[in-house]
Structure formats: structure tokens, C-alpha cells
């Protein structure tokens, strides 16, 4: 059901762009208004989300620890799973952001006949995730060729390396194939593993199906229906310079691709995709586990009236003595009668 809903949503988007261009001819709307709105939402939404996160206090250290904490020098400790200072946290964050280390630790638990509980090394999710993110990065950077003139050297070189297999014309990009395989794997995984399917919401399916559709339309534009890239670049540069002229006829498939990408961008800050920013603000990742090394002061502490024991006894000494409680200092001579403790 969740899957069908997401699928319908993406198909509706495709249809919107198709009808909007083919039937209504809303070229200016789809090639100018939509991208600007989407981009604004993306920036503003991301800033808003990050500031909202940053305004919640994290008074205590709450890192997830999955290794031996720093202790006696002769006990081997785990620097990255239980970082003790900022430097080690930096290492942990870099490994997390660039290599998805916590996903690498993923294991699969299964009860088999016995009954015995088995843990398996499960690396496919990590491989799929890594493949998806890095191919996406390459694709994103390659698209800079439409937004820069002259095209920077590294963008050209990236395109060259990405198509170095020299299969067909225009040459097939490796990142395109990896991206499609990864998205399909991640989607199929959600659908066929019952436990994963059970916890999958529309918010999980929608980005995957959307990315799948973006990949399909992108590949169609490049390898199959072809569009005039000169006009596409003119449009992109026009958008970047805020001086678009009314765009000329470019294939409808391009507008579908554009609308889907704009949807992804606009949807980004309001969805689980925002983990891209969230990872940097995760207290369970970005805090050193130094609760026992440094003194942490609650940032929202307000002055609480405290009483030391000496003050307490000063105040209640008589009553304590009456009740036969031990006191540290007897009542001075001249005061009320002194009841030695033993007398009771």
C-alpha cells in the first residue's frame, strides 16, 4: 500500500510534466518557475531544519558506544567506536560520512531451527548505500557542465573517466549504471524482505521511486530520445544568471526529468533525505564519550538553593538530638540540655 501510494505520486508527477508541456504548453512555468521555487525551498528548508536542530540543547554526552572506552593504559580501547576526545570524534565522523561505517557494522539476526539465534555479516545494504551515494555525487558533479562556461577541467575529466569504457555513442557513463543498479537493489530490498517491508513508509519508498524515475528519464534523454544539449545548457545558464529567455522547444522528456529533480530538491529538507545534514548534528555520533573525564555542566541549570550538611545540622541539631540522631557537633554549653548519644 505504501509502495503503491509512492508509485502513484511519482507517476502523477511524470504525468503533470507530460500534460503540462504537451497539452498546456507551460514551458516557462516548468523550466523557470518550478526550478526557482524548488531551489529556494531547498536552501531555506535546509537552513531552517539545521537551525531548528541546533537550537535543541544537548546537555549530556550521549554518544553511541560500540567499543571499549578509554580507561587503564593496558586495556586496549577502540578509538572510533568510543572516541574520548574531539580528534577521535572527527575521525569517527569522517569515517561515518565518507564510508558509512555504522552501516558497515550491520548484522542480520535470524532464528533458525534449534531454535538458535544466528548473526550474519550483512554487507549488501552498505554496498548498495555506498554505490548509490557515490554515483549520485558523480552524476551531480557531472551536471555542472550545464551550469559553467567554460566547463572547469575537473568536470570534463570526470565525464571522461566516467565514460572511459567507450561503449556506444554517446558513451555510457559508469555512474549511470551503478546508480540504477543501486536504486533498484535498495527498492527491491525494501519490497521483498518482509521485516523491512513491514517498517517501510511512503517516506521510504517515495525517494527511491523518485530517484529511479529521475535515473530512467535522465538515461532516456541521454541515450535514447536525445535532446538538444545546447538548448538545455542555455536554459541552465540562464537560470543561474537570472536572465533566461523564453526557452525554445526541448523534448518533453527533459521537462519530466527536470520536474522530478525539482521535486527531489524541494522535498529534500522535509524528508528523511535530510540525514545528509542531520548526520553532522547527531549527538550520538558527534560527541566524545568523556562523561567521566570532563565535568559537564547542565547548560540550562538555574540556581538551586543548596544546603551543606553543616548548615543542615546547624538548623536541625536540637531536633536531631531529640530524636536521638547522631550529630557531628554537640550543642554548646549554655544551650539546651545535651543528650549524649549513648544515653538512648
Amino acid at each position, binding site marked *: 500500500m505504501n509502495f503503491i501510494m509512492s508509485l502513484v505520486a511519482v507517476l502523477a508527477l511524470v504525468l503533470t510534466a507530460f500534460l503540462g508541456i504537451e497539452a498546456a504548453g507551460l514551458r516557462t512555468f516548468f523550466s523557470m518557475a518550478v526550478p526557482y521555487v524548488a531551489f529556494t525551498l531547498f536552501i531555506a528548508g*535546509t537552513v531552517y531544519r*539545521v537551525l531548528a536542530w*541546533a537550537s535543541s540543547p*544537548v546537555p549530556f554526552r550521549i554518544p553511541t558506544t560500540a567499543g571499549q572506552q578509554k580507561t587503564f593504559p593496558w586495556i586496549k580501547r577502540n578509538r572510533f567506536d568510543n572516541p574520548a576526545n574531539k580528534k577521535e570524534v572527527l575521525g569517527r565522523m569522517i569515517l561515518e560520512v565518507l564510508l558509512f561505517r555504522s552501516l558497515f557494522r550491520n548484522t542480520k539476526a535470524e532464528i533458525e531451527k534449534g531454535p538458535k539465534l544466528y548473526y550474519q555479516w550483512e554487507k549488501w545494504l552498505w554496498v548498495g548505500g555506498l554505490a548509490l551515494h557515490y554515483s549520485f555525487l558523480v552524476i551531480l558533479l557531472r551536471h555542472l557542465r550545464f551550469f*559553467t562556461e567554460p566547463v572547469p577541467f575537473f568536470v*570534463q575529466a570526470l565525464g571522461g573517466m566516467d565514460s572511459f569504457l567507450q561503449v556506444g*555513442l554517446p558513451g555510457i557513463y559508469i555512474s549511470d549504471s551503478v546508480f540504477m543498479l543501486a536504486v533498484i537493489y535498495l527498492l527491491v530490498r525494501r519490497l521483498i524482505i518482509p521485516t523491512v517491508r513491514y517498517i517501510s513508509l511512503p517516506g521510504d519508498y517515495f525517494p527511491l521511486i523518485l530517484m529511479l524515475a529521475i535515473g530512467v528519464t535522465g538515461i532516456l534523454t541521454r541515450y535514447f530520445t536525445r*535532446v*538538444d544539449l*545546447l538548448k538545455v545548457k542555455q536554459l541552465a545558464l540562464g537560470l543561474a544568471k537570472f536572465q533566461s529567455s523564453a526557452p525554445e522547444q526541448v523534448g518533453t522528456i527533459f521537462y519530466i526529468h527536470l520536474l522530478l529533480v525539482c521535486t527531489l530538491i524541494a522535498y529534500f529538507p522535509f524528508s528523511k533525505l535530510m540525514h545528509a545534514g542531520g548526520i553532522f548534528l547527531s549527538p550520538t555520533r558527534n560527541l566524545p564519550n568523556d562523561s567521566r573525564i570532563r565535568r559537564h555542566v547542565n547548560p540550562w541549570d538555574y540556581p538551586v538553593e543548596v544546603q551543606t550538611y553543616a548548615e543542615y545540622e546547624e538548623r536541625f541539631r536540637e531536633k536531631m538530638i531529640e530524636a536521638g540522631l547522631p550529630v557531628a557537633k554537640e550543642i554548646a554549653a549554655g544551650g539546651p540540655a545535651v543528650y549524649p548519644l549513648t544515653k538512648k
Partner: protein
Amino acid sequence: MKIYDGKFIIAGLVAFIGLATFPIWSNIGKASPLPEPKLDTPAIQQMEQKQCVLTRDEMRTGHMRLLDEWRIEVVRNGGRIYTATDGKIYEMSLQNECMRCHSNKTRFCDACHSYVGLPNSTPYCWTCHIAPREKD
């Protein structure tokens, strides 16, 4: 609203906005006119009806597909004659046919290709095929 760790947060957000708006600020004040592939070669000037192998729109978006088709036909099947939709006969050859008319590679092919970010050696075809000699 109090921002905790404001130093890092603001630095991070500024970096994010800077990166995300790269296409905007990197293009300020830059002119980037559309390339104009030159059609003024002697061979084309002699033509009565200035016509490419396919229609202009088809060539624009699909010339690499045509070249691929030709290459496969020549190299794998040994066919060398291409009959266009209008009945004209062409030799399926990059050097001897395309470049006979478009003998100004740098001002024709390369003009477009560098605009869309293909390196000038790309199409990499010219590592084997010989580009026409140009005077200027």
C-alpha cells in the same frame, strides 16, 4: 531561539549555501554565448542545397548515433554505402564523408563540444582517425 555550537553551525551553513549556489556566483559577469558552428567550408559553400546527411534537427541531437551506426556497419558488417532518407548516397566514413564537408573541425565540431563539456580530444575518435588539416 538559542543556537548551540553556533560557530560550527553557521560555518557549516555558510559553506553549504556557498556550494549550493556555486552555479549562481560562478557565472556572475560571464558572457557565455551559444557556440555557432561554422558552415563556411569550401565543400559546403559549393552545395546548391545546403543539407546534411539527415535533417538539421536530427543531426544536432543525433549525429553521434549516426556515427555509431556507421562505425558498426563498416567495422562489423563491411557495408560502406549509406542511403539517406532523401535517396542521397553517402560513404559511411568519418574522415572521408563528414569531414569532407565539415573540414573545419575546430570551429565546427569542437565549438559545440567544448560548450557541452566534452574534452577537445573527445570525441576520442581523433586519437585514431585523422582530423582534417586546417589553415588557420
